[in-house]
């Protein structure tokens, strides 16, 4: 039997459910649109992924959406052949050897430079900053020949340090601009307080500015890493030895030599995507933090 009190208890719960439903309903169109856009955006990538697991004959004869019909024909052969026979394993390692220092060096240099440009007083600071930022507009193509000649003179063409230097140079203007701007937004009193506490510039930088700028530095690191990892042009021009080729270069060679063997290209492309995905997911909380926290209130 239902008592009066039970009835009155269920009503608020019921109306709460209605309210909740209404909330969902009011946002439904937005969510549907977002999901559709996301699906459209991902379709080519999903196609790539599915194709990479299909045997060569299937890829040649039918579209990737046919893979979900029985009988299922999936294979790992594409991956094993790309890695073992076409040097993708070695290229993966090369990409790492290029990308990690190619990210770390410019971020570190830019962090030091950003601190100096944002907080240290020295003559010509603003002029220097404007000059550095202006370098952002220099197109990379315009620099290829002079830089190649310079690297030849110092015997760094075709070496990893040579390409690290090149990536550092190309990445620095934007990196310095980003970090200088971010460091500049830190509360002045915070740094003054540290100076009064007895901290040197280096200590203020290491103990205060760096920890408080993790979101900005992480974002910059992701950008720079993706840029270096996905770079083909710089590697093509400055790294002339095939044994040091990164994945982008190897894949582009695969395209010319195996132009018709799509299944190998899809597998190679997917290998090259793995690491950026890992990096992004590992650091993505800093993106969110960078957007939401924003406040560095003491």
């Amino acid at each position, binding site marked *: 039997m239902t008592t009066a009190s039970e009835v009155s208890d269920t009503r608020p719960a019921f109306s709460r459910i209605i309210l909740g439903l209404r909330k969902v309903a009011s946002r439904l169109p937005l969510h549907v649109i977002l999901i559709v856009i996301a699906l459209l955006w991902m379709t080519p990538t999903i196609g790539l992924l599915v194709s990479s697991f299909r045997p060569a004959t299937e890829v040649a004869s039918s579209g990737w959406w046919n893979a979900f019909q029985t009988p299922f024909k999936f294979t790992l052969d594409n991956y094993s052949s790309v890695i073992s026979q076409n040097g993708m394993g070695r290229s993966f390692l090369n990409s790492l050897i290029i990308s990690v220092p190619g990210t770390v060096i410019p971020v570190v240099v830019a962090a030091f430079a950003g601190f100096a440009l944002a907080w240290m007083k020295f003559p010509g600071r603003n002029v220097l900053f404007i000059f550095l930022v202006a370098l952002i507009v220099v197109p990379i193509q315009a620099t290829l020949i002079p830089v190649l000649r310079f690297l030849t003179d110092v015997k760094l063409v075709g070496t990893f340090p040579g390409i690290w230097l090149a990536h550092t140079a190309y990445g620095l203007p934007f990196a310095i601009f980003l970090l200088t701007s971010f460091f500049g937004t830190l*509360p002045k*009193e*915070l740094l*003054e*307080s540290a100076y*009064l*506490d*007895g*901290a040197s510039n280096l200590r203020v930088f290491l103990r205060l500015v760096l920890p408080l700028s993790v979101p900005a530095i992480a974002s910059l690191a992701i950008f720079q890493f993706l840029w270096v990892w996905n770079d083909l042009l710089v590697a093509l021009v400055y790294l002339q030895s095939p044994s040091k080729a990164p994945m982008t270069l190897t894949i582009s060679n695969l395209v010319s030599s195996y132009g018709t063997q799509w299944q190998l290209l899809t597998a190679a492309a997917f290998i090259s995507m793995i690491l950026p995905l890992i990096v992004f997911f590992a650091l993505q909380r800093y993106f969110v933090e960078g957007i939401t926290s924003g406040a560095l209130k*003491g």
Partner: protein
Amino acid sequence: MAEVRFEHITKRFGETLAISDLNLKIPDKEFLVLVGPSGCGKTTALRLISGLEVPTSGNVYIGERLVNDVAPKDRDIAMVFQSYALYPHMSVFDNMAFGLSLRKTPKLEIQRRVKEAARILGIEDLLKRKPRQLSGGQRQRVALGRAIVREPVVFLLDEPLSNLDAKLRVQTRAELSKLHERLGTTFVYVTHDQVEAMTMATVIAVMNKGILQQVGKPQDLYEKPVNVFVAGFIGSPAMNFFDVFVKSAKDGIYLDAETFQVPVPKERADILHKYLDTKIVFGVRPEDIYSPQYIVPGIVASPIRAKVDVTELMGNEFYLHMLSGDKQFLARVDARTEARPGQDIELVFNMANMHAFDPETQLTLLGNMGSNLSAGLISNASVL
């Protein structure tokens, strides 16, 4: 433990003159409050002591040491900022220990000092928290704690109460005074709030437009302001000013404001005698105006009539915004006074506490009777 001395300090920021020829001696163990409106140079003066700014000319001394070229960290001072400037990524303990660990203080000693400071400030149970987990009042205490553990010779405080709510501000004011007594260190405190200055300071320095106006004990500044600015700035509600003519009558001299006339008491009449028939500025504090029914004994009462404009009952007292002709003034009278807007009523000025100023120079006309420049605190006469 040290005195602080400014000698002919001038500070410019580009074209802007922030401080002009400041001469001020802050004796050891005093609680000096630098007070003035925004942009008067008080914070700049504080930052000159801290070393965060360097003077354009002149010398700053802490104790006997000339510190013009001494880095902030080597000045043995600690500063509490208006925004507290706590390190957001460090715990309360680490915030307080940061300065000590940079100075290579032994770990046990750091722990002892931080715990002791936390005990004094009542924040022992917050040591593990991050600043963002604290309320405004708690953050303010941590900022104080960070200064205390350093055991500096001079404490610098830059408007530390301005981010607190009114109730907490009153409470913290009292605690700061206690803390000053307990630590026995020189405090230099900057505020734009003259109430904070009056309640906490052992010495007040009033600044305006980069120029030091007057230095002295709170009561001296209140009773004997040297110029119109100090008279109007110290005391709340502010002093009323009237343009009056000094006139002579057969039984002495009186002040003629056209809408009212008030006689000048004997000892002040002697001084004002030489200003006969000239215009001066007459000042009277709202609390020196009484309603005739509630006069306290011992005042020199001079009645006037004026029209009530607006009334504000504060509970224990009554603020009457009055109109005498076109001239507005404020009276702070007994709460039992009966007055309605629009009414013409009689009020009484206590002329024993009258003030008189030169309309040109703005300086007091009552000389020693109206001012004391606390000669020991200012080392030359160029302050005005």
